[in-house]
């Protein structure tokens, strides 16, 4: 018999639990694909909707200066909602370099 310490036994139990939970999740996904939204990471959690974001929300993002944040919101009020993320290039003060840095932050819906 293996002489496992208490910590080592916990690791064994952990591995068994992880495999069991994984089986359960996979089974649920096979039954109903819509369950994916509840059980898995949705890409939208890591992005902001450009047409719903508020100025305070933009100001909390460290790489967006205040003037740029105001211009992004101003563009939306002036021209209506964004059709695609690439429209950010039309915002005054938002150059190619900053756009490349920020484009993964947003999605449009």
């Amino acid at each position, binding site marked *: 018999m*293996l002489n*496992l310490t208490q*910590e*080592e036994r916990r*690791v064994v139990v*952990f*591995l068994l639990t*992880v*495999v069991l*939970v*994984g*089986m359960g*999740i*996979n089974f649920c*996904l096979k039954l109903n694909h819509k369950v994916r939204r509840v*059980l*898995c*990471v*949705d*890409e939208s*959690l*890591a*992005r*902001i909707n450009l047409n719903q974001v508020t100025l305070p929300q933009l100001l*909390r*993002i*460290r*790489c967006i200066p205040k003037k740029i944040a105001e211009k992004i919101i101003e563009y939306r009020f002036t021209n209506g909602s964004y059709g695609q993320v690439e429209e950010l290039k039309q915002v005054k003060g938002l150059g190619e370099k900053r756009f*490349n*840095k*920020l484009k*993964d*932050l947003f999605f449009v819906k």
Partner: protein
Amino acid sequence: MMPLLFYLAVIFCSGIIFAAKIKFIFFAGLLAAAGFIIFSYLCINREKFFYLFVSLAVFLLGALSFTSSRVVYKGNISNFIDYKDDNLYVLKGVVVSPPDQEQNHTTFILKAEEITQQQVKYSISGNVRVVYSQEENFSFGDELILLGKLHKPFGKRKEYFFRQGIFGILQVDAPADNIGISKALFLQRFSNYLKTKIEQKLFKYLTGVTAGIMDAMLLGEKKFVPLLLNNTMVLTGTVHILVVSGFNVGIVAMLLLLLFKFLRFKRNVRYFIVIFCLIVYCFLTGASTPVVRATIMAIFFLAGFILKREPNIYNSLGLAALVILAVNPAQVFDLGFQLSFASVLAIVFLYPKLKSLLRVELVNFRPLKFMIEGLLVSLAAWIGTVGIIACNFKIISLVTVLANIFIVPLATLITLCGFSLVFLGFIYPPFAYLVASTSEFIVMVLVKINLLMAQLPFSCLFLS
């Protein structure tokens, strides 16, 4: 009595800070240090005088090492270039950092060996940061010949680059000439190979966001972590989980010890193999200050087990600081160094005091006791780092302690799942898919809790 190595590390750091603030004359300091060492030998039987002279000698050694590190060799590349230079230089060197491929360009650190200036070749030394204007598949250890504009770092990042040992910035537009000889050490090549294989496994079994977070937590590679997520974690004070540190090193050590125990390796043999594996892991994760600190501390503890001596955490911390500062004294001003050591010191010092103050040992209900202990560790770390973070980032996260109660256990589970996933990915892929599903779920919970915490009123204070 203060632990010796910790005490020496504090004195050594003081010497570095002293030399940084005043104009320190190297040779005068060298003579004074020699004098103090002689006095300490003469007073070897007189305890108080001995420690006094040793302290003064170590203090001056710190000052001398910092002063010496500010002076570059004659053949250093910084003596051949200027701050603003439109000339084209041909630079030959070896890639000494994993190339970072971003959109339309690749950046890496090149250890310069030869520079051609006005058709004259010079042998040089020093590291250069290369910005290569195409996406190219360079590898660690490749020997390259590059043509581009070269200048000294200037502006706000000048001091940061100097501390990292980077003396020039090279902008390359022309195709590079890859000589094709790998000059990396075997350990470095092996670590990079292993890192690539592990990343492939992670991205094979996990979706984008989860794989990015797992890549950061296991391998210290943050480039795939979504910007919004990183930003939210900064606001909630939980971004430390995306940095490979002592926590990860501890898990690696524990898992490896368990594995070798299953394989029936003898006790001391297990410890030696784990020490080697931890050194490989340190190289694999980029050998950043927190990882180096944690690796040295882990080796210190494992060595204690081998030698059947009780390890002292303050001495291990002191040893880690001395090793890092002996190589690069300017690290004492590096934010990563400060945060890493401040957080560990605060936990080690404050946590037992908070625990006895609140009489946690009287709590009988184990889950509640576990939660309170987690909260106190978080609080101790927050107290130790809040000042440094406020000064540098102008932000005070008020929700950190609360967020960490949930985030840290989840991060533990994610790290364990990640290592299990990688291991099973190599050994038995069908189980790896199951572990991947569980990992996705736990990461989803972590992300949602983090977003929720960031949205709480007064979750953080902006100081500017």
